């Protein structure tokens, strides 16, 4: 694998994570429990879509075959998407969305801080920019985690169920393969395996504060980064890609 091919896949993995999570969060528009949450979740969705757009644009440049950012989003099939499974899982109840967001925002805080040190100027610029936004995302999900975990019997039970159900999808955030290895050597990519312990410590602290139990580390469900997805992604893409597939090259 050339450095260019590796960088292309590396960018796609991040862009796909941001796009699919942004899509999922946008599904809360007009469905959140209160108006302020409609605004919060769709604002967070928008930050992810913006990040995805910048990453796809850069990925298209790196690939250099003439494909555009729109081609990458609208003309790739499910097996060509490289997002982690966690972002494509259904929103579930509000507790499930909060648990997913808390796990991901905690990861992104650490990941983007490292990415901001990348030797690749575009990646370091994006890292430094997006971390400002993620600080807000993190506080939002952390506040809700405390409120629901340390709330009523029902909110506590729902929050614990959400944490338990999503736990086995969190390990994929720290996976690495030959795509990352050379890029880490070249100080371009972030070494996510080095973040795992820090992440577990920060998440465990917050869960304990929210009177919740941290599940034991065990089997992890993975595959998305290499294109092996749950059935959920197909349904997302069917909706996301409907228009350009039904009316190829339609413009306003």
């Amino acid at each position: 694998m050339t450095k260019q091919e590796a960088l292309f896949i590396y960018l796609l993995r991040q862009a796909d994570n941001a796009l699919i999570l942004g899509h999922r969060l946008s599904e809360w528009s007009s469905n959140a429990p209160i108006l302020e949450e409609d605004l919060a979740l769709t604002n967070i969705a928008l930050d992810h879509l913006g990040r995805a757009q910048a990453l796809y644009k850069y990925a298209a440049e790196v690939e250099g075959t003439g494909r555009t950012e729109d081609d990458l989003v609208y003309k790739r099939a499910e097996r060509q998407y490289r997002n982690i499974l966690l972002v494509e899982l259904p929103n579930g109840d509000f507790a499930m969305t909060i648990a997913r967001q808390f796990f991901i925002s905690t990861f992104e805080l650490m990941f983007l801080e490292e990415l901001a040190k990348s030797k690749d100027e575009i990646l370091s610029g994006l890292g430094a920019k997006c971390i400002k936004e993620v600080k807000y995302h993190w506080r939002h999900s952390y506040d809700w985690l405390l409120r629901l975990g340390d709330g009523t019997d029902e909110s506590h039970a729902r929050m614990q169920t959400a944490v338990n159900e999503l736990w086995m999808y969190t390990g994929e955030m720290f996976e690495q393969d030959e795509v990352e290895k050379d890029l880490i050597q070249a100080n371009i990519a972030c070494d996510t395996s080095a973040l795992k312990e820090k992440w577990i410590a920060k998440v465990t602290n917050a869960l304990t504060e929210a009177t919740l139990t941290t599940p034991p580390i065990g089997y992890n469900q993975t595959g998305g980064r290499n294109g092996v997805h749950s059935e959920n992604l197909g349904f997302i893409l069917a909706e996301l890609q409907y228009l350009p597939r039904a009316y190829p090259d339609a413009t306003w």
Partner: protein
Amino acid sequence: MVMITSEEVYSLLSVIPDPEIPVITIDELGILRNVKLLDSSYQITITPTYSGCPAMQMIENQIKEILSSKGIENFNIKTSYSPAWTTDWLSAEAKEKLRKYGISPPHTTAEFVSFIQCPNCNSFNTEVISEFGSTSCKALYRCNDCKEAFDYFKSI
């Protein structure tokens, strides 16, 4: 082909109001970064406030419209993410315009501020309703004295 200096192009564009907060311009907000003349073409660099800011497309269109109306066709617009946009780029005058418009202006990022001032009655007895408001750059607050809800321009 019309040729003017890059400074003149900058001042033509600096009057464009922000689409979401029309009392301040894209220059005052720091969205318009610079104009450079490269190989007889103007390179206009803009930066988004937040990475998903939906106003960017409209700002690009307004830039194109202004330059076309002046007969300038030799330009390209570049979106840059670095240095990351910060509210520290807003001048004291721009902040005052925000306050008069009813938006509590951002404090500087270096400063620790625990209370946000109500732009209507100047009280510091306010509370946050939500850190996410009507646009990416604003949070929603409530004044406990005059009872008005107001926007706070987030300091980032």
